[in-house]
């Protein structure tokens, strides 16, 4: 593949890397696994890049490939790494904007989401990214009605995890 193509890919990915980080955050725990998944997603995006026409936004195109990689292609390493340290690192914010209670609550929410299964995480991800239900349904390959029903169930499940 040409150098120019490589350059434009790297630039776009670098600018939009938060999207990939967000997916990695949902599907992995620990810094090593996060980096590992990030790398695999990068490889898969690069492989698919020649088919990217540019008629949609890079992020719109990339998140589907990234989700497919996280859910289906990526092979989790067996070793598990301590997650707490990494989570704290991700949540390090300036003292003056630190709202302890809310921050703790958000941390618990992330933990609860991490307990969901791979498909549920994908729904949550797209919900958080403000995708509408027709797009969520299309991305997963299910009907819109069933996507809505499942999303409501997930909300219930999260409530149960948080308030057992």
């Amino acid at each position, binding site marked *: 593949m040409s150098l120019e193509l*490589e350059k434009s890919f*790297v630039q776009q*990915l*670098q600018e939009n*890397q*938060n999207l990939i*980080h*967000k997916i990695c*955050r949902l599907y992995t725990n620990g810094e090593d696994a996060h980096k590992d998944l*990030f*790398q*695999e997603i*990068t*490889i*898969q995006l*690069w*492989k*698919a890049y020649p*088919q990217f026409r540019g008629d949609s936004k890079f992020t719109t*195109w990339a998140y*589907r*490939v990234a*989700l*497919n*990689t996280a*859910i*289906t*292609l*990526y*092979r*989790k390493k067996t070793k598990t790494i301590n997650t707490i340290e990494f989570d704290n690192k*991700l*949540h*390090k*914010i300036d003292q003056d904007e630190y709202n302890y209670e809310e921050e703790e*609550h*958000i941390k618990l*929410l992330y933990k*609860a*989401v991490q307990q969901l*299964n*791979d*498909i549920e995480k994908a729904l949550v991800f797209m*919900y*958080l*990214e*403000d995708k509408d239900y027709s797009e969520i349904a*299309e*991305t*997963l*390959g*299910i*009907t819109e009605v*069933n*996507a809505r029903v*499942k999303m409501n169930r997930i*909300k219930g499940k*999260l*409530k149960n995890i*948080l308030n057992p």
Partner: protein
Amino acid sequence: MDELDLLKKDWKKNGDKYPKISEKEIYAMLHKKSSSIVKWILIISILEFIFWVGLTFLLKDSPGSKKFESFNIDHITIPLTIGSYLIIGYFTYLFYMNYRKITTTDNVKNLMSSILKTRKTVSSYIFVNLAYFIITSAIILIVTFNKDGDMISLVNKMEAEGKAGMVYLIYILGAIIIIGLLVVLIWLFYRLIYGLLLKRLLRNYNELKKIDF
């Protein structure tokens, strides 16, 4: 406020908290090797094809099969040979077509189903081969007992001692043991593929099907 909407608020402003990966690091990543399950499935599938195709050719060139040709049973060996080529050709084509359909830009369910279909092609190939192997072994045994001069004299000799049954038994048991070993080998491959590589995929695929009953 909904729990998820609370998370959404944080999700949106969360942008700067992730470690920034530089362009240089991304360049390096592009040239790293993928460890995706599709790659592993492809490697294992090709190994399986090589194993079976290799076995087919190995048996064809063995001294046993040279002797076999001297029995003048072309009406049996030619259809069997053509059959084995057709099996290889058909499944290689099917595998290639299914493999090409695996694309990460597809929707989640289709991607999973393409991977499973590709893998199923290999499984079917193996089952067909196993059946072929069993049928061929049976034919070889029957032909050997009827046409092989050494075997006939051995049977006759043993018959005089009243032990002809023993000869049949030993040969049939031998064939069963070889087939049994093959089955164990195939089972190990299955454990490897479905246990290590496809377990998560199957779980997720079933979960999607459950949502979309």
